[in-house]
């Protein structure tokens, strides 16, 4: 295996460990924190719907091996043996645990969200899509609040190997903490990581009426799918450019209103090149001095969670007036002549952030966030 490291969350117990189990635990922790901080509703009675980005779910090797062993078929094992063993009723919990809706279902029970919870995937843009769905529901007047979560605890040998086979992962193991090198010339892929981010979204009217502390505002969002290739961006950059412009238009802002770009910035040669090209096209000359730093240089790529995790970082960037750096930036890439806030955090007042999330399958989502208007 060329890549033997990842940013796992190994300090949160999930037993028996599986991707949906850990994803649920991480989502639960993030949501607990967000709901408590919001002060909304009552315990177990959240006054709105749940939108949750989770990794796609399937039976994993640990379960498959247990069943194969229980089948007694040894070297002659076939899926017929697995099915027969499954039907014998010794592994009932596996059914529910590996349903696509199970994580959302448990969280809806626990937090008392309203209506049918929506589990979603737009690959590495999923977390941003969850936020987008929540904003849309509030804008439609269906609800005053929404719980939006992105979570991913899907690191296991097969998931790592899958990304590795697509040559998407960094192989710079010496040391792994320096493997993620977004925007640097020697970048060689992303570092898989686990995590979760949760936001309680609320209409401005409702939040002000109850005297809630407003942590930031989602001003708008944009989307544009890319039909060029399953894993590569259109070489003309049009979908990325269109996505960013759609987000600015939806927010009613111009490029000059943006003080900081929170990029997708995975550290793959392709993503960073195309994203820089898109940002430069939208922001023009100003792109050279507009701060743009990749959170993934420090936490890795949290996949389904990334859009939500990075929305949280974006809000903190504005609130704390400090831009987190792009670390591991030692070798500038002349093709990306931009201010990536190299290696050291920078104090700055930031009015509006645009946060990009792009995913396999041509998924592009940009969120525009700002501080509470005076």
């Amino acid at each position, binding site marked *: 295996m060329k890549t033997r490291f990842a940013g796992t969350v190994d300090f949160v117990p999930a037993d028996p460990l599986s991707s949906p189990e850990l994803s649920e635990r991480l989502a639960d922790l993030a949501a607990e924190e967000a709901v408590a901080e919001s002060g909304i509703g009552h315990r177990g009675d959240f006054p709105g719907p749940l939108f949750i980005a989770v990794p*796609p*779910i*399937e*039976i994993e090797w640990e379960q*498959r*091996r247990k069943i*194969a062993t229980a089948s007694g078929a*040894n*070297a002659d*094992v076939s*899926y017929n043996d*697995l*099915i027969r063993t*499954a*039907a014998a*009723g010794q592994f*009932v*919990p*596996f*059914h*529910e645990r590996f*349903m*696509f*809706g*199970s994580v*959302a*279902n448990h969280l809806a029970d626990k937090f008392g969200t309203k*209506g*049918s*919870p*929506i*589990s*979603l*995937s*737009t*690959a590495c843009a999923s977390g941003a*899509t969850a936020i987008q769905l929540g904003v*849309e*529901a509030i*804008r*439609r*007047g*269906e609800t005053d609040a929404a719980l939006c979560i992105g979570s991913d605890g899907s690191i296991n*040998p*097969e998931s790592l*190997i*899958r*990304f590795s*086979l*697509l040559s998407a992962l960094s192989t710079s193991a010496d040391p792994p903490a320096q493997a993620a090198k977004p925007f640097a010339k020697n970048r060689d892929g992303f570092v898989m990581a686990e995590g979760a981010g949760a936001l309680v979204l609320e209409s401005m009217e409702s939040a002000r009426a109850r005297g809630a502390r407003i942590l930031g505002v989602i001003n708008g969002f944009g*989307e*544009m*799918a890319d*039909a060029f290739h*399953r894993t590569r961006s259109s070489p003309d950059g049009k979908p990325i450019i269109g996505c960013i412009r759609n987000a600015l238009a939806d927010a009613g802002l111009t490029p000059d209103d943006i003080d900081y770009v929170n990029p997708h910035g995975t550290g793959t040669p392709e993503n960073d090149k195309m994203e820089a090209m898109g940002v430069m096209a939208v922001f023009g000359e100003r792109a050279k001095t507009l701060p743009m730093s990749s959170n993934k240089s420090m936490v890795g790529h949290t996949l389904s969670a990334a859009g939500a995790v990075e929305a949280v970082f974006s809000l903190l960037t504005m609130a704390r007036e400090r831009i987190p750096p792009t670390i591991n930036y030692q070798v500038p890439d002349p093709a990306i002549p931009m201010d990536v806030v190299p290696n050291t955090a920078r104090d700055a007042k930031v009015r509006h952030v645009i946060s990009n999330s792009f*995913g*396999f*399958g*041509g*998924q592009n989502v940009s969120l525009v966030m700002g501080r509470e208007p005076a």
Partner: protein
Amino acid sequence: MADAADDTAREAWITGIGIVSCLGEGPEAHWAALNTSPPKPDTATYPPYIIHKLPPLGFDKQIPKKGDQRQMEAWQRIGTYAAGLALDSAGLKGKAEMLGRTDMIVAAGGGERDIAADTAILAGLPAAAQPEAFLNERLMNDLRPTLFLSQLSNLLAGNISIVHGVTGSSRTFMGEESAGVDAIRIAVARIGAGQSDIALVGGSHNSERQDLLMLYEFGGFALKDKFSPVWQREAHPGFALAAMGAFLVIESRAHADARGAKRIARLSAVLSDRCRRQPGDVTAGLRRLWGKISSRLQPGKVAVISGASGTAPATAEERVFLAEHQDIAVRATGTYVGHAFEPQFPMNVALAAIAVSRGNLYPPDAGRTGGRASDARPADPGRGDIGGSLARRRAGPGRSALKESLRCRPTMTARGAQSSSSPDLASSRRSAPARMTTGRT
């Protein structure tokens, strides 16, 4: 786009239907089969399990590049194919400008396994000196690099973007049956609110998947040994895993009219909910949702298309609810098309739209041997099968559909959808299929 003077502008209309199932391809084939043919379950592929398979599809017709087809597993090919049929049906195929602003919501599972690779690894593990190293080594060597993409849930949407050029937006909902319900619910809500003008919505599923039989057999939910209509599986419950692709083009009335599209049926409401699946919860939930739309239904012109799957107790709880509405015709399509999770609701909405546009329902027992109403509502003792008589009574063209769905725990899901004639249309005799789907237990 909504005109304050014209409150019909933001109505959500179905203007394209693309469906494939064991009954064939397209609305005509489905309607003909539902009217004349007995169910044709497959018992030979995975005995003793009973599934519903697709007839051979000419994938080249909708996915012209072989290279694209090779990048997909079966569920993605089925879905990309059905999506193409829907775009053809709506007159959108090849219209780049409009496809470039068409929103997409796909309901998807995923994870289609390489059965041969899995089996070989499992067979080798018992003798491996270092099982973990053996597993890693074999995965590195045996997994095709592109397999990941053909397993990935959102890559059905990705393939539709690539093959058909739908790029306005792309969202994939997961979560079994509820994903299909919520995909349509959100698409309709967005159109109603002016957040979207036109959307491609649906999903797909492949039944030739032993990995899924295993997943469902952990809970003992798959139908085996003996086929019977979904309402008649009390003694022998289970769902018949189905292959299916179902996509709809849904658009605002204003948008449809501006481009001269044929409006097939209106989606007046899509409701969904969940419950904790305690005994009685499903019935109570259906009553609650029904109460939200019942005042808009015209007595005698309503029908229910049920998504009952044949698994207890959800199907039994749905029966309790339906028994309270003996005057409403009921058809459970699962008897014929089987149960396919994510695309089940889009398929049933498509069938409801076809019924509305034709102004009648398929008969509960036409072409079925023995004269037994195999698909009709479960008649209470001493009561006639009203569903059958309504179906045979030809009514005028209904033009609207009111959908409702109820969702409970994903593992035990029930949903309902009803469509009814719309009071704002001029026709004096409109009938309306309505639909109600109940999922697995």
